[in-house]
């Protein structure tokens, strides 16, 4: 994996949220880092091993999101497998990963989050060539398609909600055309991802207009790209990718994104819940993974692999099936022709 890739692979939206929060109270001084919500109450409960039950070993950091996937996954698997979970922290080493595998002797490994995947890759690289690794299923990892090729015996489920799912949903919510979709991206990093997304989107008659903002975009690059999409291409909506480089500073957000988006409201769909806020109109909608449903999809995948004697074969990375929708109600109703009758289909309404 190159350095550029590793930079986009830990998108959390946390720094952006700090900036948006600062903008909301009228101060755009450099935002203090926001400490992720502490989750000391989260624990992993492992049941005693049973005879003749194959093991599924789950390696995961403890967070509300991973916990939700874990609980559903365990629930779905427990009748057929021993489910063993081990937490991954900042202190976890590749050797510790290897020890967990040696102790559990799993038929299948579930790896959650980029940090876990990077540790597992280091562990694989440290082993002699020809080592037979357990079949691995990667979930909750950003831009998995670009990582999976670097790992042995791995499949999984992508974490980003596909463009086609996002805009098919949006089309049902709005009483205005949603056909031309604009997206800002870094070609050097995400070209193949965008190409795949455009292919899926075209099946639903969406036309995607991607604008390359360069490897290290400036606020002017962001403004120029948004202006081009809105005024020249006349797009119907903007799709915001989860790429940290597009939000690397408060200037990029305030003088890039918001400076242009505030001129004329457009449906902007983001991939992080916290980017939909009532005080700063950035994303009017967020479409994010449904973690409980992701647990079911992961369980389905594990059962299929078990049926195939844990062979990955030519299996591709699956797209996530299920989304949760967040809406900035005021923005959507007052400026974007949101159909009021659709409100019962929205998971989180920000008023």
């Amino acid at each position, binding site marked *: 994996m190159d350095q550029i890739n590793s930079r986009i692979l830990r998108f959390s939206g946390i720094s952006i949220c700090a900036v948006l929060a600062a903008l909301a109270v009228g101060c755009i001084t450099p935002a203090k880092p926001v400490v992720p919500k502490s989750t000391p109450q989260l624990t992993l409960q492992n049941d005693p091993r049973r005879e003749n039950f194959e093991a599924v070993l789950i390696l995961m950091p403890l967070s509300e999101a991973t916990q939700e996937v874990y609980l559903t996954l365990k629930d*779905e698997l427990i009748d057929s497998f021993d489910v063993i979970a081990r937490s991954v922290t900042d202190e976890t080493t590749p050797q510790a990963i290897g020890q967990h595998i040696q102790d559990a002797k799993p038929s299948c490994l579930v790896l959650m989050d980029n940090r876990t995947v990077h540790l597992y890759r280091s562990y694989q690289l440290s082993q002699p060539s020809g080592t037979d690794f357990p079949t691995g299923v990667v979930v909750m990892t950003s831009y998995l398609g670009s990582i999976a090729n670097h790992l042995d015996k791995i499949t999984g489920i992508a974490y980003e909600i596909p463009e086609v799912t996002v805009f098919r949903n949006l089309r049902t919510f709005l009483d205005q055309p949603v056909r031309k979709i604009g997206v800002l991206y870094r070609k050097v990093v995400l070209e193949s991802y965008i190409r795949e997304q455009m292919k899926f989107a075209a099946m*639903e008659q969406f036309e995607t207009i991607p604008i390359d903002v360069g490897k290290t975009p400036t606020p002017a690059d962001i403004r120029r790209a948004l202006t081009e999409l809105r005024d020249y291409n006349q797009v119907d909506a903007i799709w915001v990718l989860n790429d940290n480089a597009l939000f690397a500073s408060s200037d990029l957000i305030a003088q890039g994104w918001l400076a242009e988006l505030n001129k004329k409201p457009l449906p902007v769909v983001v991939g992080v819940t916290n980017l939909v806020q009532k005080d700063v109109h950035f994303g009017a909608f967020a479409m994010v993974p449904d973690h409980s449903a992701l647990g079911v999809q992961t369980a389905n995948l594990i059962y299929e692999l078990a049926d195939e004697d844990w062979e990955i074969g030519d299996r591709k990375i699956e797209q996530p099936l299920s989304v949760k929708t967040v809406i900035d109600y005021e923005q959507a109703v007052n400026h974007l022709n949101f159909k009021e009758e659709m409100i019962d289909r929205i998971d989180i309404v920000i008023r």
Partner: protein
Amino acid sequence: MLYVFLHTSIRPNALQKILQQKVSSVNTIVFGRFRDFEKQLSQAPPDAVLAARPVLDAQQLKATLRGIRDGVPTTPYVLMSNQTQISTDALGDKTIGTIDLLGRKKMTDFVTRLLKLNSSPRVKRVTKLQDLLPLLQFQLADAVLLSKSEADKIKQHSQLELQITDIDVKVGLPALACLTPRGAPICKQFESFDPTVNAQMGVEKWIK
């Protein structure tokens, strides 16, 4: 307590809010996932259960009220596929997507039975009606099994070349099982629901 395990086009919390307003005598809990529903049903038995008829049957709960639409308590089921119509002659080696009504094993048996197959197809379960279409779009299933009315709704919202295959099978519409004396008034309230509320549950009215 009224437990609801029903897949509709609105979110479970929205359905819960609607039903809680209408059935104020007891608390209403709407479940989105079969395992959660099944666990709660055994750990804290409710006064009444509202679910699709196959769910009640699988739990051996007797329907007190049956929802009806177009005068009947059943709805035709179909297979929906993308681009190519699926043949019912060769379903055994196909992957069939479906809403999870009964859990992994029972759902596979249920699908096998509905499709009149000798061997079980591979079954991909999803938790929401909206997730059936992505199964087809991303080629994770060869076809999805669902009610004809839901298939028609999905076709309205998609530009994919979706094909419907009639399988000549009908499945029971939502039904209500009243299990305790406290559950009896719930039945009365259901019978007086207005058409808008009933429509949210995919029925026109309730009969004994």
